[in-house]
């Protein structure tokens, strides 16, 4: 066995507080750009025998610009398992099975990712197999129509959870023109109409399944030179595309928006509060400060959490934060309130917690504890090859490189209590706010 590669970060995290901060993603990786626009990132690790291959396409529900096409990126993710002339689905399954592979895929606002984890000796075969479906996908209309029903089934299985509906409503209200208006699953009416979209699916494939949108992450027991050669061989001939989705800009919100969801089944009420915040930018201190506020204001050690959840016990679920997105999105706070009569008080508490950040400067001790939490939390999440690839996938969605996380965590290290106060004043304003409540049937 080769000498273990233990990243400096994991080996001596405590040194990370020294004057020159260590990179948060400290695995030695190599990033290669091919002439067709495809990007390859290889990360050799010391976890033996296993390889995680993540293929990330920088296309998600954000790219669904045409009316009636919400949910299409996710639907298309399903279609990618429908085979090619050379490798029909059964053949694809067989090769994956012989590799002992665990395979799956997922779609979010900004990305679609296809992943497989398997024994290292199968890597060349799987790189060839995957290259084929990304270039030569081929399915009949009947197959397409059947798969649309499976997507409807996916909506159905998600629909038992009230938070799915709450977010659907929150986004629909908060955005007018930007595609973040709809969730990744899409509007139900669009899902119901999916079987009729066969021709459009080919357009979608031609637009987005192109090398300039695609990054291969290969993490595990691998040698970079061998991976590069195999990728060159199987993916090098893939033709670059030219399409860029005209994603509508969202005009600034000019007033508070409110909505309510009546839930048919008994539930404790939920409150979702969203504020418009800027897009991800790894060097922007405002974005970094907003990222920190979620944990500072609503994490388990935050005064609001301790009051609402531990002392008063009015709330049993509380979390908040800003999820990094390619375009301006929302800082959201979600709470589940034990009793209907406390809903107004809890909503006011959430709002006043954020307003409180505008007046009082945060103790630097708390900021230090949070920064430590972030560093250890990040490092401890990287305890196997699949987890490393999974973590990097988000960075790829946002900026197509793991360096985005290195820069972003470095920017977060710079954030001061004054920065926290300034972004709170700028973004936690009534005109940028959307509130959705959800409650069950009234007690008889």
């Amino acid at each position: 066995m080769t000498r273990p590669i233990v990243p400096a970060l994991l080996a001596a995290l405590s040194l990370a507080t020294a004057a020159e901060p260590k990179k948060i993603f400290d695995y030695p990786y190599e990033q290669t750009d091919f002439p067709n626009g495809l990007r390859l990132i290889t990360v050799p690790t010391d976890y033996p025998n296993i390889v995680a291959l993540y293929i990330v396409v920088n296309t998600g529900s954000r790219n669904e610009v045409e009316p009636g096409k919400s949910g299409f990126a996710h639907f298309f993710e399903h279609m990618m398992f429908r085979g090619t002339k050379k490798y029909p689905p059964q053949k694809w399954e067989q090769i994956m099975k012989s590799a002992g592979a665990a395979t799956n895929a997922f779609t979010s606002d900004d990305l679609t990712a296809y992943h497989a984890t398997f024994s290292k000796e199968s890597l060349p075969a799987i790189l060839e197999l995957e290259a084929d479906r990304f270039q030569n996908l081929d399915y009949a209309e009947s197959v397409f129509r059947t798969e649309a029903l499976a997507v409807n089934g996916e909506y159905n299985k998600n629909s038992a959870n009230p938070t799915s509906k709450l977010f659907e409503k929150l986004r629909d209200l908060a955005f007018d023109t930007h595609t973040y208006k709809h969730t990744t699953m899409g509007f139900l009416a669009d899902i119901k109409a999916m079987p009729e979209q066969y021709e459009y699916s080919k357009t979608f494939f031609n637009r987005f399944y192109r090398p300039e949108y695609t990054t291969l992450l290969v993490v595990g027991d691998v040698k970079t030179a061998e991976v590069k050669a195999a990728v060159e061989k199987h993916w090098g001939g893939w033709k670059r595309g030219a399409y860029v989705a005209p994603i509508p800009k969202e005009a600034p919100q000019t007033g508070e928006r409110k909505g309510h969801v009546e839930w048919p089944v008994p539930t404790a009420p939920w409150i979702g509060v969203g504020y418009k915040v800027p897009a991800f930018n790894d060097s922007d201190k405002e974005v970094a400060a907003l990222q920190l506020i979620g944990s500072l204001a609503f994490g388990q050690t935050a005064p609001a959490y301790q009051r609402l959840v531990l002392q008063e016990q009015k709330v049993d679920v509380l979390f908040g934060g800003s999820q990094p997105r390619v375009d301006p999105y929302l800082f959201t706070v979600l709470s589940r309130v034990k009793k209907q009569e406390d809903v107004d008080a809890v909503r006011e508490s959430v709002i006043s917690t954020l307003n409180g950040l505008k007046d009082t400067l945060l103790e630097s001790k708390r900021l230090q504890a949070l920064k430590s939490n972030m560093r250890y939390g990040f490092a401890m999440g990287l305890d196997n090859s699949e987890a490393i690839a999974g973590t990097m996938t988000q960075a790829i969605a946002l900026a197509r490189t793991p360096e985005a996380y290195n820069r972003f965590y470095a920017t977060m290290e710079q954030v001061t209590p004054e920065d926290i106060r300034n972004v709170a004043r700028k973004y936690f304003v009534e005109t940028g706010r959307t509130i959705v409540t959800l409650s069950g049937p009234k007690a008889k």
Partner: protein
Amino acid sequence: MNKLLMLCGAAAFGAEYVTMPGQSPLIQFRIAFRAGSANDPKGKEGLANLTASMMSSGGSKTKAYKDILEELYPMASGMVNQVDKEMTVFVGTTHVDNLEPYYALLRDAITAPGWREDDFKRLRDSQKNALRLGLIGNNDEELGKEVLYSKLYQGHPYGEANLGRTSALESMTLADVQSFYKRHFTQANLIVGVTGKYPAGFVERIKKDLAVLPKGMPSTVKLPAVKPLTETRVTIVEKKTRSVAYSFGYPIDVTRNHPDFPALLLASTWFGNHRSSGGNLYQRMREIRGLNYGDYSYIEYFPNGMFVLEPDPNLYRRSQIFQMWIRPVEPPTAHFALRLALFELDRLVDKGMAESEFETTRDFLMRNVNLLMKTKSAELGYAIDSKLYGIPEYTKYIQTALAKLKHEDVLKAIRKHLRKDRLHIVAISDNAADLRKALLEDGPSPMRYNSPKPGDILEEDKLISVKKLNLKPEQIAIVPEAQVFQ
């Protein structure tokens, strides 16, 4: 990796240790007790789970929970508990930089819980909400599975949900929790697992620290034989929901240490490997017919399957069921979907799989079993389980058995342990009376598609759509959601 695995047994009824020293700076703990919800007294269903929550999330003698959260925060560490029928485990990870303060908190959670009334109230509310909202209200699929288990094990120590019953939780007291703790969280039940680059002498310290727990006697309950089903039963849980979720099955004699386990694992993997598009059931129901999002089968308890791709370790059980999980289907296809799933079960029992399919599945499992050990914590968990089941290290155990396994062995195991009838079927559905009526009438339930299907599928559908279930009124019960686990 297995070289490093050391099992150190202790004297009879003493604590046991599974230690895996390694190079990782992440120190991972699994502190397990061989006690769980099977030990819940009658009328106190949910007590084991609440006791474990009070330990991991209720503060210690010297520190309030709020202060513990403050201490854990800069370390980005925590501890979670998992309670099942015969096992409770506390799982935690810390970076070696923070080992001392982290370990002190973990030790106190196990040996010196705080027993404060306000934590009790909070955690009891939280468990009630996990039961009434998280499970019954918001997760039709998990609800179907838990109801299935409770029906199959009625009157048996496995017969109640780990989260308990609402009425029992409402009457539970702090004194109940304390007495459960004294009785079951003892050295006789303790198994400690630890892995990572911990310092020399660390395990000895843990032994010394945990020796303050009462010696106790093993909590293992006597498991009576599961009452056999004499006919198929259907339970329809009625709730407002868009679609119909099914879970069904029956108890089997096979657990992980049974000689037929590898053969039956292979059969179930071929038939319905968890969350994989490769399973036969998934292919027939979802891929060809688009009935739902997925369809799988199991021979071991596998909670939270909608959230995880690999099973969590430390769910050791001495009795298991064969289970089929049919993800939600549209109500107009609910009758057909059930018939199709049972048709596929018939086919599994009658014909098994082709030799080539046997070989492909065996090759898959040979390698795939390694992926179960992708984290050190999972490896540690499996090592503890293997100790309980009395089997060798899990990957070796499976791979060695698979290497010897023949097609005929799998067919034999299917015939011996699986059957086509005497199932308990659980459906979560709105308009339960309509579904009940359709099942009783047993009339044709033709399938209509939105696209042309191959002739052989249409022919097969003709058979499936009239497949007789032969159910009598007394075999189908409707239970309103509000009464479940009440």
